[in-house]
């Protein structure tokens, strides 16, 4: 993180995490670290463990309620609280069903299956395009000398704090005049742009951390910028790309504002569809809970599989929006 102009919100968050996430298993433990682990073992107190677990469970109860409810028959949901199923399971009265999910996914009026497809179609280009553009720009800012480089970089960096609300109305009138309003092209374009400041900034920091001697050596061997970028830098940047990619994937997946503003109802993503269900069928909890869970299942899987990248990306990108 060398040439960051001012102490920015994101660098510090990024740096804090970077310090922490070298996996212990990958390098040999020094004596000090072994001692630290040993003392830690002595220091864990049963009180702290108990308190930590209780709080973690309290934190999870609301989500459990949603998950349990989504599998209960609609009539039961209206009649009794979800916590009663735990008692009913002993007496054998608890009933579970997949019907809520079937109705939510394939029902005539809800049709979340099509929203699920839309969310994928929205999200994938919105990850690929900004990462590619940002990688190239970050390379230019880090390793190509040109006039006005620092001024431009500071400008890009500063754009991170611009709330995307300021861009929505003018962009929408552009899309209308181009005749693409309501189509997927609008969100691909918008999300890609909104992602760039953060992406360029993060990837630039990672690129700057690569030793200059490596690039010099490649240059001496006669490699041009394009070759250096693809042969030398790209392989080293895979973790950074994964971190930002995970962040961006989830950001777009979970976004409501951009999808709501630009997309035609026929192409509405899950978040928009579920938010709409909450507005028009506030009392139909069997559909709402199933719908909400359908919209959450992919982020949860990503979270479980890519926890390390995910946490790093989320922390680094948390001011976005």
């Amino acid at each position, binding site marked *: 993180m060398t040439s960051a102009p001012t102490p920015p919100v994101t660098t510090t968050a990024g740096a804090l995490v970077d310090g922490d996430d070298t996996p212990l298993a990958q390098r040999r433990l020094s004596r000090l670290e072994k001692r630290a682990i040993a003392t830690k073992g002595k220091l864990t107190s049963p009180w702290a*463990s108990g308190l930590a677990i209780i*709080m973690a469970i309290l934190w999870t109860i609301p989500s459990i309620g949603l998950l349990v409810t989504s599998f209960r028959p609609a009539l039961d949901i209206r009649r009794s609280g979800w916590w009663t199923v735990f008692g009913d399971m002993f007496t054998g009265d608890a009933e579970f069903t997949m019907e809520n999910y079937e109705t939510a996914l394939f029902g005539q009026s809800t049709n979340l299956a099509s929203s699920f497809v839309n969310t994928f179609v929205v999200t994938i280009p919105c990850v690929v395009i900004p990462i590619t553009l940002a990688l*190239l720009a970050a390379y230019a800012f880090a390793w190509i000398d040109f006039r006005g480089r620092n001024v431009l970089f500071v400008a890009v960096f500063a754009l991170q704090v611009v*709330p995307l609300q300021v861009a929505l*109305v003018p962009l929408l009138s552009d899309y209308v005049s181009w*005749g693409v309003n309501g189509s997927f092209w609008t969100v691909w374009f918008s999300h890609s742009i909104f992602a760039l400041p953060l992406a360029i900034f993060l990837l630039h920091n990672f690129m700057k951390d690569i030793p200059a001697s490596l690039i010099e050596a490649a240059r001496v061997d006669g490699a*041009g910028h*394009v070759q250096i970028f693809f042969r030398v830098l790209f392989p080293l940047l895979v973790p950074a790309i994964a971190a930002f990619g995970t962040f961006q994937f989830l950001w777009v997946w979970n976004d409501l504002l951009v999808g709501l503003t630009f997309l035609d109802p026929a192409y509405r993503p899950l978040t928009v569809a579920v938010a709409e269900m909450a507005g028009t069928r506030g009392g139909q909890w069997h559909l709402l809970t199933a719908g*909400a869970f359908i919209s959450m299942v992919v982020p949860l899987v990503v979270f479980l599989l890519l926890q390390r990248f995910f946490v790093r990306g989320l922390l680094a990108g948390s001011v976005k929006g």
Partner: protein
Amino acid sequence: MDWLPDWITAPGTTGEKFSVMFVAIVLFVVIMAVLLFAIDRPKRVPGWVVAAAFAGPAIIFLGYGLVRPALLTVWYSFLDRRGNEFVGLDNYVHAFTTSQFQQVLVNTAIWVLAVPVVATLIGLVYAVIVDRSRFERFSKALIFVPMAISMVGASIIWRFVYEFRPDQPNVQQTGLLNQVLVWLGLSPQQFLIGQPWNTAFLIVVMIWIQTGFAMTVLSAAIKAIPDDIIEAARLDGLSGLGMFRYITVPSIRPALIVVLTTIAIVALKVFDIVRTMTGGQFGTSVVANEFYTQAFRQNNQGLSSALAVLLFILVIPIIAYNVNQLRKSEEVR
């Protein structure tokens, strides 16, 4: 764009949707590849051409899609609702003087103050506790999960917690919170309707989400405190709360500032939660929600632009505080 086949702008089936997605990605990749190939072939290319090929596309995108619209929005904020007539600061005056918008501003202020303070406090306490607990990874993961899901999903989870049933003998509460009230012998409440406390119940949702962020950053900072400092403090007889107050908190000051300001910015822009839980009714609206309503429901371009600009202006003091505090803590060292 009439010359394009229909499915490019208006795909109907799932297959067409994925095809147009594929086309978009391939188109993008081909353009970028041609660009890079073009500058890589000739032996002597001037430096600025290479720089333009690498940085140019991103700069053009940003200039066209972010800077230009932002400037336009600033201009629109001085125009009337249709964008025809110059009205000076009228939109801003309206936003600050009508009682409806004053409520919106007060609500936003409450969000910006309450969410970061409470979430950071809980996150800090939890980070300290979990540091000495046995199931550290597992507990941390559970607290962090709300960060992974959408705010729409989180809002639905909590709407269900707050669900209200009329207080009648044979009606059972289905919302957990009201059931707890009933178990305690109290009468159930309409949490999302009763003013002014409903804003507080919306804020709880954001705190629930952001605590995981605060906890993760602060926990990393706590682990980075050098062992010898802790050892020295222990030899001086510090322990428990004293250690927390005089060693832990001062050592992680920069991290605390980053967490506070980051969450404050997120809270300032809150939209999804308010829209999903109350739709901004019952006196819960905030600036970002009002922006959406004015821009796309009321079609008041002037006022909505003023609100968007206001959001941007309100970010600046938070960033300034962040930069200022971080400078200070660097001077101390």
